[in-house]
């Protein structure tokens, strides 16, 4: 996962080292079909909507793009699709700039949905397939397959405007997929879908990713993103706050936070230096340990990192006071990471 080191450190957010496997040979091959966003900026008048945004979307991986309202997700996606021009930075595909011809092979589901309201579902999707360069027979064939996959085949002959909102949304997804795109950019593809439809669409997207298509999708449904994505990009106020593999992000945040249940009141933990209480409820305490504190003298030489040292100090203290029922790192949910980073 490429990072925006300047932006992230300037904003005081955590920074993750590149995943170890990124140096592997496999990645060298992947680079061939990688979407790379480098130092992209964009302003609307006085408003700096995007500031030095950099990240990558890797082949075969579902990349979740999350951020608060107005943080710049849609703007970023529009720049990738050439709908908006960046005021700085580059977007590359296969290491080369994205041109009109390249873009034609991308699949895009815009935030503001839109199809021709009076055109029939199948005609419309076939038409868009042909605009993307398919011949008529292939476009028709793909349309039939997709409508079937999305359980929409019974509405194929109806004008879009006669479909329910959720079904229009499925048609919109079909429109983004009809030309077997090499890259998928989906702006909130799950909003407005019922749980069964979510699973259907999810299945379709997973299948694309499994074929090696990089998928970038934004969503406010963090539980869904957490379940679905391989990689995460978190944007806040137009700058990348965090990006990386899902597990990697979890580990990073989880390793700083611990939960402990002791025999009696855990209030004493307040007095341990370098420890920040998140939650304290009788015998149960959730706390975070700060970086950059020297190991307690009594543990010097026994532990390697300062962070480990600090949680070991707490455990040590707890054991000296009495029984410890449980002690361990807390794996944060995406929602928690999100709250912390944004």
């Amino acid at each position, binding site marked *: 996962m490429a990072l925006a080191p300047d932006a992230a450190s300037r904003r005081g957010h955590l920074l993750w080292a590149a995943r170890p496997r990124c140096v592997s040979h496999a990645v060298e091959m992947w680079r061939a079909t990688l979407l790379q966003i480098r130092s992209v900026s964009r302003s609307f008048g006085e408003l700096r909507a995007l500031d030095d945004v950099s990240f990558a979307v890797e082949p075969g991986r579902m990349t979740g793009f999350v951020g608060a309202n107005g943080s710049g997700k849609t703007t970023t996606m529009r720049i990738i699709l*050439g*709908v908006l021009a960046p005021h700085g930075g580059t977007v590359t595909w296969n290491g080369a700039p994205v041109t009109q011809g390249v873009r034609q092979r991308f699949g895009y589901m*815009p935030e503001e949905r839109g199809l*021709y309201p009076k055109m029939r579902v199948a005609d419309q999707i076939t038409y868009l397939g042909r605009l993307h*360069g*398919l011949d008529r027979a292939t476009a028709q064939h*793909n349309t039939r397959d997709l409508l079937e996959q999305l359980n929409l085949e019974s509405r194929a002959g109806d004008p879009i405007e006669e479909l329910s909102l959720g079904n229009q949304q499925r048609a919109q997804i079909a*429109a983004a997929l009809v030309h077997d795109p090499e890259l998928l950019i989906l702006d909130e593809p799950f909003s407005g879908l019922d749980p069964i439809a979510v699973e259907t669409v999810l299945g379709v997207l997973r299948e694309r990713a499994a074929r090696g298509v990089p998928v970038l999708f934004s969503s406010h449904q963090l539980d869904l993103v957490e379940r679905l994505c391989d990689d995460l990009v978190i944007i806040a106020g137009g700058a990348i706050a965090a990006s990386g593999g899902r597990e990697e992000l979890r580990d990073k945040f989880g390793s700083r936070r611990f939960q402990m249940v002791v025999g009696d009141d855990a209030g004493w933990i307040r007095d341990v230096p370098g420890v920040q209480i998140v939650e304290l409820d009788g015998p149960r305490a959730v706390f975070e340990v700060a970086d950059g504190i020297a190991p307690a003298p009594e543990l010097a030489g026994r532990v390697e990192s300062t962070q480990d040292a600090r949680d070991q100090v707490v455990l040590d203290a707890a054991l000296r006071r009495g029984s410890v029922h449980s002690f361990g790192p807390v794996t944060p949910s995406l929602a928690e990471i999100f709250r912390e980073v944004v």
Partner: protein
Amino acid sequence: MSADTARTGGTSFLASTRLIAEREIRTQTASKGFWINFGVIVVGIFVLSIVPGLFGGGEPSVATVGSDAARVAEAAELDTQPVPDRASAEVLVQAGDVDAAIVPDPEGSSPLGLRIVAEQSSPDDIVAALSVSPPVDLLNPSEVSDGLQFLVVFLFALVFFMASFIFGMAIAQSVVTEKQTRIIEILVATVPVRALLTGKIAGHSVLAFGQITVIALATPVALRLGGHDDLLSTIAGPLGWFVPFFALGFVLLACMWAVAGSMVSRQEDLGSSTSLVSTLIMIPYFGVIFFRDNDLVMTVLSYVPFSAPLAMPARLFSGDAQGWEPVVTLVILIVAVAASIMMASRLYSGSLLQTGARVRLGRAWARTD
């Protein structure tokens, strides 16, 4: 989806344009309004030609009683219908089957020995045909009578006006629909904006030219049915010039309509941005009709891009224009069309993604997006 998906190797500019034009044509021809408009025009042409009198009619028709009357009427090239007596002649006049009757004058008060019987007013054309008047020598004879000239110019102007307006409005609506439904975002991400604009204009132009061709083919038939063969031979010449001027003039205005459509985001706001284009159509329409007799104004109008498509054929028709003049005007029009396509593409792409109620021209031109 199959793994062996056939790609035509990306869509070229021309292929995209063709697809877009095709869709426009399909959409338009699938709408009832399109056919109703068309039907009204064609039926109108037949009604105008066949209903007697509206086009000035053929020769006046008369019922004649007696051989003297018949001889005089035939000499005056009137449409003659002999009847046995005055009573049956009066029946025909009353019924409107003939314009008048020429009957013998039993009282002998007329030097010709004939009387004319008409229904309500004195049939001046018949009286004139039967009168003896001194011959007139014209120094600069016009090939076509003044009234007929006006009529033909008026009809050409009307066809141009209606076609520009009806098809232009359809173009503007089609543009604004894409903005309003937001499908524009997918389209812009897929095909070049210039292909979008060109395809739209091409599609609607094909439809307009198709309709005009049908009208041009139906008009002679209608005129012949109505017995206006002489009129037919007079408009055949200017019709030849009208076609290229019409085509270029139409494309010129079509660009304007497309820009007008892209300047707003909702159908409801279309009126405000199309008023300028409407004016650009009205000016030549009324200009050519009102200043038909003013050589200077007509000469100027025939070189100004927006009015040239009407004014130049009109001047050719009345024999005022030199042979080289239409060629110069055609060149001017071609240059204007090229310039307007370039300008329209720029404004169009600059304004397509702005979603305010009214897009500012300056911003669209500057392409802040």
